[in-house]
């Protein structure tokens, strides 16, 4: 062979993956869902750093305030908050008024007033920078000016006065990571197990699949409660419990695929070439398995998120102050009629994410398996 043939340029081929990618890009619902999910994941990851509140901070003056785009406090809350703060300082309120965005409070008392009572006002979530502007000669009455602390609760606050926006993003981190990681755990176990069973075939396959059947027969909730009893409640446990159940479906699907791929002529051709079993598994079986696995994975993630919500709803999932969408929905359900935003907002986040995942799953199935349509 001469050097010239060696540098013969080769046309670029278009692989099945490239084809699938092009088909996926042509699917509007899947593309929009993909963008939506990316935005959602990005918001959950960096959002809590930029929201004005910490997810653990409790604002006692803002229990269960409804979502609003304008700043808190509202006038009636101002009144309540001032009265509350004065009461906590054990003083009597003479009058208060708002002037040039400042709150001027006049208080009286039976005993001389210590100037440090401003702290009581500052301690309120509504007022800050309280200064004594005027004090009567006998010290029994005092006038203070304070700034109004403007706070934004775009999604309202929960029962204990925590910002729902921050919490729903934090909860999203938990839900999405459980979905992704437990999904991944299930896929890894399922693919390895299923491919081994399918490719080995015969007795090995028989025994391995009977084990799967036995595990199927265990009631899931019972299994999780057992785990909780033995190991206590724990974030890692969630992955284990969910992953340990979800891989069963994956294993069955992959085994079926492996069985059918094993009988394809290209595997026979590889055997006739003398390719080792390992080579056949890596070069022929696994690449041809990936399509269905990817499809199933995108459909598995929402399932896992729902399972986690379900467990959290039962009180077996993540614990306060951490939260997941399932936990928030469960808390929201308890406040249903009066504070409906507590359930609507996390439910909206959860369902829209699940929708997006399912659209992507459908899009991937159509893209990777165009014959099925």
């Amino acid at each position, binding site marked *: 062979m001469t050097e010239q*043939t060696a540098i013969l340029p*080769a046309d670029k081929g278009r692989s099945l993956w490239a084809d699938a990618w092009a088909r996926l890009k042509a699917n509007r619902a899947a593309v929009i869902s993909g963008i939506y999910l990316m935005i959602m994941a990005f918001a959950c990851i960096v959002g809590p750093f930029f929201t004005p509140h910490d997810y653990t901070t409790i604002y006692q003056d803002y229990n269960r305030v409804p979502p609003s785009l304008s700043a808190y406090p509202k006038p009636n809350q101002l009144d309540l908050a001032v009265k509350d703060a004065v009461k906590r300082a054990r003083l009597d309120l003479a009058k208060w008024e708002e002037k040039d965005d400042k709150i001027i409070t006049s208080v009286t008392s039976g005993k001389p007033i210590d100037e440090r009572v401003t702290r009581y006002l500052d301690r309120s979530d509504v007022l800050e920078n309280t200064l004594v502007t005027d004090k009567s000669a006998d010290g029994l009455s005092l006038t203070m000016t304070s700034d109004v602390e403007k706070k934004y609760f775009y999604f309202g606050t929960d029962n204990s006065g925590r910002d729902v926006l921050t919490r729903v993003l934090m909860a999203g981190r938990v839900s999405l990571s459980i979905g992704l990681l437990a999904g991944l755990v299930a896929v890894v176990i399922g693919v390895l197990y299923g491919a081994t069973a399918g490719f080995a075939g015969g007795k090995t396959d028989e025994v391995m699949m009977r084990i799967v059947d036995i595990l199927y027969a265990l009631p899931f909730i019972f299994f999780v409660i057992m785990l909780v009893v033995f190991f206590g409640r724990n974030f890692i446990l969630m992955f284990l419990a969910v992953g340990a159940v979800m891989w069963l479906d994956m294993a069955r699907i992959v085994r079926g695929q492996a069985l059918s791929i094993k009988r394809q002529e290209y595997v026979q051709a590889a055997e006739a070439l003398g390719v080792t079993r390992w080579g056949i598994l890596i070069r022929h079986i696994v690449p041809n398995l990936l399509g269905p696995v990817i499809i199933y994975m995108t459909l598995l993630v929402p399932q896992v998120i729902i399972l986690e919500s379900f467990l959290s709803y039962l009180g077996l999932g993540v614990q306060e102050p951490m939260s997941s969408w399932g936990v928030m929905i469960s808390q929201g359900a308890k406040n249903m009629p009066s504070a409906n935003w507590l359930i609507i907002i996390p439910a909206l986040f959860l369902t829209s994410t699940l929708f997006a995942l399912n659209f992507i799953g459908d899009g991937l199935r159509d893209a990777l398996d165009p014959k099925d349509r």
Partner: protein
Amino acid sequence: MQPPILSLNDVRVTFTTLDGEVEAVRGVALDVHAGETVAIVGESGSGKSQLMMAVMGLLARNGHASGRADYRGVNLIGMPKSELNTIRGSKITMIFQEPMTSLDPLYTIGNQLMEPIIRHRKLNKTEARVRALDMLRLVSIPEPERRLNSYPHELSGGQRQRVMIAMALANNPDILIADEPTTALDVTIQAEILELMAALQRELGMGLVFITHDLNIVRRIADRVVVMRHGEIVEQGPAKEIFARPQHPYTKELLSAEPEGRKAPVAAGAPEILVGDNIRVTFNIGGGFLSGPPLVLKAVDGVSVHLRQGQTIGIVGESGSGKSTLARALLRLLPSQGPVHFDGQDISAKSVKDMRPLRSELQVVLQDPFGSLSPRLTAGQIVTEGLLVHEPAISAAERDRRAIAAFTEVGLDPRLRNRYPHEFSGGQRQRIAIARAIILKPKVVVLDEPTSALDRQVQKQIVELLRKLQREHNLSYLFISHDLAVVRAMSDHIMVMKDGKLVEQGTPDEVMGNPREDYTKRLMAAAFAA
């Protein structure tokens, strides 16, 4: 002359694909008269099937048809589905290539036959049953009463195709469209089905549109022949005219597509390279702990093969006769009884690992050019896979050079080596499969129906290629096929198999010119009846 029943005018079919619009049919005009058989002939991809699919409103979702297809003055293209359904299935019916999949496995033959009758003729169940029985008799199915209650899997391929014909004829159609109705069948059955269709057509006087890639099949039954290529009609005319004086070069090519020539026998002293004595392969079907003793199926029953260097042994027989199983046993891809010697060594007891070094010298090319190449690898990767096993030391650049050499040798443009299998045509794919086998410089190549899934002209090219490779590398072939014309052209020794047993063997002229056994005679009669 009466006006045509079906008249196509400027029919166009386009498909929207990832690469943009693809025109499958580009303005075809065609008339079908009552009582006439029109054969539409062309290679795969010529648009012959899509043309009729467009008429029947059966295009895939990304397909779009335009033009006129007038059935008794009514344009079928663009007609709403509900109206179309009163015509298709009743006045225009269709039978398809694959008898295995066009019947629903969940319903009995009777059910499936009666459904269109009840639907289109508004008969009640008893009347429909009588009609269904008549139809089964018409297509000469033995024991029609019993067959009414059978399920599709209980019937052979030929019988299923007869049922499909019965279904298509049940409502006295004006036009029957047959899309490659015999391609998936064995030769002997092919001939029977063709005869049946011709007889029914004479008897019932309908128009018959026969779509096929094999011009020689329609020689016996067509009145008029339409030759299509690249979505256009290149030539049409009375069958006698076309067969006697083809005008267009493409038609001539189609007519002369039968592989020609004979292979000279090898010298008597040529060493025997692959020898199998009294090979037996049995399969156990079912059986196990609770289901009792398994059913033992003798797939190959005491067949001996002596392949000399440079020789080509053709193994012929119907599907299920055990010819592929025999080849796999000789390749040690299946457990079997009986000694197998390759190049003087006994390989019948060798383990998978011990066989591996010998694999490079014992190669195989499989039938299905679509299934035998892994869809996720490039053509170059597929061709060089054997090198990874047998010459693991060579560099990637050297492998690439060898791939280029192999591509050139099988007549493929080496620049295509980074493409994926789905980007090649059937013939090109088969060339890739051949390149994969010969890159290892084998001594023996088993060719398991390498040309069966290909169009006639492509078949001829592949046969030429295989001959060239045999001459250049002194290869020995074990050539398995049910296509006797190809076998005759390729082999210098022929073995005829039936039900796992060797029926007859000898030189091509002995076996084909002067068959001794009944079975061989039947096979020859069916294949060379033209």
